[in-house]
């Protein structure tokens, strides 16, 4: 029975004189290596040149603010529930009077932590979020010396009030169109 079309018959003929002389094969090999001398190199000179990420790349998360600068997250816990790696934990709290400019709705997350060592960057939290509060950006988590440093709290997750240029890809509409295009 033939399983694959790529099967090759093994030929066990003794070597001819030319094959035993090695030299033609050696010169053939040298021609192959010299061709590689002129090929385009795959190396990227990293700090100066950075690899271009896919438009739908999933990197470090960001907790978004609304157009008034208030945090969108209402600590509903759907992201934590959807997370297959169980990387997200949060503590909900009630908004006090006078904090309307900080939190959009009456409930907010006083603690919101993602363990980047557990996270598999699947993006299910982004899909689960009913408030469009969490998004995955195109930046990668930095290296750290301790495990604790990989648990990102709100200080590192909440979107800064001044939007850095680097995270431009994270903005919702652009991302969605790019995602649709890639599909």
């Amino acid at each position, binding site marked *: 029975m033939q399983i694959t079309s790529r099967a090759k018959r093994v030929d066990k003929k003794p070597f001819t004189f030319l094959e035993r002389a090695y030299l033609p094969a050696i010169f053939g090999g040298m021609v192959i290596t010299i061709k*590689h001398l002129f090929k385009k190199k*795959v190396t990227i000179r990293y700090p100066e040149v950075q690899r271009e990420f896919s438009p739908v790349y999933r990197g470090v998360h960001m907790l978004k603010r609304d157009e008034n600068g208030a945090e969108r997250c209402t600590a509903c816990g759907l992201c934590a529930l959807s997370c297959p790696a169980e990387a997200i934990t949060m503590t909900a709290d009630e908004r006090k009077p006078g904090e309307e400019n900080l939190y959009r709705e009456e409930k907010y997350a006083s603690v919101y932590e993602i363990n980047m060592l557990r996270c598999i960057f699947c993006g299910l939290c982004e899909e689960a979020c009913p408030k469009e509060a969490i998004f995955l950006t195109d930046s990668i988590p930095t290296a750290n010396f301790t495990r604790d440093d990989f648990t990102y709290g709100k200080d590192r997750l909440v979107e800064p009030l001044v939007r850095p240029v680097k995270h431009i890809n994270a903005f919702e509409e652009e991302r969605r169109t790019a995602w649709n295009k890639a599909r």
Partner: protein
Amino acid sequence: MSTIFFLGYKTILVTMVWGISLLIAMYATLMERKLAGFLQDRLGPDRAGPFGIFQPLMDGGKLFFKEEIIPNDSNKFLFILGPSLAMFTACMTSAVIPWGPDLNLFGHTIPLQIADINIGVLFVFGVVSLGVYGVMIGGWASNNKYSLLGAVRASSQMISYELAMGLSLIAVLMMSQSLSVKEIVQQQHGINWNVFYQPLGFLIFIICAFAETNRAPFDLPECEAELVGGYHTEYSSMKLGFYLFAEYINMFVSSAFMAAVFFGGYNFPFMDKIANGNLLAILGVAVFFAKIFFFIFVFMWVRWTLPRFRYDQLMKLGWQILIPLSVINILLTGGAIMLKNL
């Protein structure tokens, strides 16, 4: 006056040849790494200075600042003698190589060769044989079984291939009727190069040169898999650097020797058209160095193409193939010379 002049220009020449061979060996390490990168679709070292040109300085500096370890159980005198001898013999061979046609300066004829001894080829072989001692003494003095096995392997390889190397050269010597390297080069005037008369001899010689310099595909003495590091397992710091560096100097010198004996040295086609003697000398030196660089390139090209031989294959190739082939080559050359003289 003429004695002082003689001593003066010989000193300058010796210093220049020594400095240039060290410089070339230094930059051969960079070239090797760059070429290895290019042949594997990488870039190679490019961080130290533009295109990584300071990389050899960095490597040398690093080796100098590494801790120098001399094992307690080693024979200290021989332990230090080993790398010194390797370096010494590597630097000495270049004395008989003619780097270019004679220069005419200040009414004197200045040959661009340190010593035109009438047994130049024998001198080269003698010094190259001494090179085995550097490896052997280093491996033995380390008092380490891996070093010793590596040294035994290296020296048996070098001794076996020296035979075929000498025999392949005998055919050339039969044609040139001289052992002086300068005379051999002068006989290859223009494009009358020995390689066209001795292609088989050249092939045997270049294979043996790979084996003599312990380079791939014959780099068995350094075998991480079964010998830890080979004969220099116990060496550190600049003593290790000397061993590694001697390999590159050997590569340069054997490239120069091959270019001189088989590829016409400083001779190039249409060299008679150039009337000015000094211009011819400068062009000759340039041509000679171009040939040397080509051979250094071939050394590296082969290293990054071929896998290494197994030890029994190495010995079989040396004793059962190369030596009989070079004997046949001698017989063929003898027959051709006899027919020509009939």
